[in-house]
């Protein structure tokens, strides 16, 4: 069974560009909509690219702004100035 890398975000306008960027950059992503929250699952690795979020948002976005819309996650996290990765790969 694949290990699931996962992120749960607010269901709101601030989180929407992030969600759209995830769906674009992780084509196998699966979405679970809950009241107030959205959970996105990807097998093994989930990537959020700063450039894609900025393209969706139409302005600058610092990956640390994820803290404003984040509810939960699964996977080993790696974060730098350009991307956030949640992964079970080694």
């Amino acid at each position, binding site marked *: *069974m694949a*290990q*699931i*890398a*996962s992120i*749960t975000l*607010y269901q709101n306008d601030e989180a929407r560009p992030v969600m759209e960027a995830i769906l674009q950059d992780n084509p196998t992503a699966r979405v*679970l909509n*809950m*009241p*107030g*929250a959205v*959970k996105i699952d990807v097998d093994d690795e989930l990537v959020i690219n700063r450039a894609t979020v900025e393209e969706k948002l139409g302005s600058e976005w610092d990956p*640390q702004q994820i*803290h*404003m*819309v*984040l*509810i*939960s*996650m*699964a*996977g*080993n*996290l*790696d*974060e*730098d*100035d350009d991307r956030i990765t949640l992964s*079970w790969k*080694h």
Partner: protein
Amino acid sequence: MAVKKMGLKQKYAHLTRGLDWETSYQKMDDVFPYDQFEGIKITDWSKWEDPFRLTMDAYWKFQAEKERKLYAVIDAFAQNNGQLNVSDARYINVLKLFLTGVSPLEYQAHRGFAFTGRHMRGVGPRIAAQMQSLDELRHFQTQAHTISHYNKFFDGIAEFQHMHDRVWYLSVPKSFFDDARAAGPFEFMIAIGFAFEYVLTNLLFVPFMSGAAYNGDMSTVTFGFSAQSDESRHMTLGIEVIKFLLEQHPDNLPIVQKWVDKWFWRGFKVLGLVAMMMDYMLPKKVMSWKEAWEIYFTEAGGSLFTDLERYGLKVPKYADVATEMAEHISHQNWAVFYQYTHAAAFHTWTPDKEHLDWLSEKYPNTFDKYYRPRWEMWAKMDEEGKRFYNMALPQLCQTCQIPMAYTEPGDPTQIAFRCTEWNGEMYHFCSDGCKDIFDDEPEKYAQSWLPVHQIFQGNCGGPTVPDVLNWYRLNVGADNMDYVGSPDEQVWNSWKGKAPAEAAE
């Protein structure tokens, strides 16, 4: 020459490496007296990596913004009389249980992480624990502020902190945290940081806050998700601490495994209260406890423990028993509160037909066979004017302190009894998991403050039930008993222009 702006990794490295020093006037072992007696071996603290790399300036900036947003919502909620828009006043009982049972744990976590942060020799975990300590204080405060609005209209809320220290069922979450805080700093980190925050907290906040959203409680959704956004950082700390300990020395593995086994089981038992909230207390339901367990333990925990296999760490002992119990725990817990409703600081009710059908659908293997007949029996007794109250006090488990209401693995018709004889006295347990925990440290759990025994010893206000309820500061006739016929129901019906329900409905 222009100064180049530092990157995230560089800034974090300065904060967590450059600002630390070795003491010279005092021995390091005297400055950090708590980080060795548990047997954990650390050879190189500098190997600690915080993947979020949050610096203090960024921390304050984000937290301030979260607070501003949250308080804007709370203000709007109060100004617009948001309490009128919840699905049903039964819902408020979820908040009562949350505020009396969970919010004081946030405060305990604040204290626990402040202590741990002080006593970790490495600066990376010290900073992470400090941030978490501040987060937990914020959670406690925002929860008390948010729910205080409901205190203007509903019973059972005003004395939450006092009740947390005294009321029988609240000794379950209270003793859980007392246990963690009475351990050493590494066990505390595994207990709360890893087992609770990483493995189990999603089961508390995500489905529960989604439940608040679905039941029209905008203010609780907002504090819940605001707290949960910190929780992701706490989860990262939890997984980091376990990887760090396992990478530092092979001797750490058996110690860590023992703590993971213990705290998984302790946490699972406490979360039985959430199971009950989800299956019985939310008027509009988001998912069943069993479904939440599948998503957040079986699936998410499965990925996690597969990852940790490379260190030799195994899935917690009795995880299979817990998964089997996911079929039963919410029903067994709500039955406890139903029959002790006279001694509870929130209201209870029998599920109506639509609710019973939902439970039958969600628990096809067990509900019709074991639990539906019980609710139908009680509803019938109620109709006949013989509403069932259990007038004796229950036997409690020495470890988890919950009434021994759980059935044998593989046989839901029979209550599980486990017993150990130690130091010339018998000790009783609800499960193998709880018995193992006692057997490992009997000196600790022989000190359990079991509410039933304390009542019999005369330490809880007096010998009669009214004496004890008075000592709890439980307002008899308002805070306790069934929802139908309560002042809460009256106020709700007056807002909604409805006639009160018949008591026997």
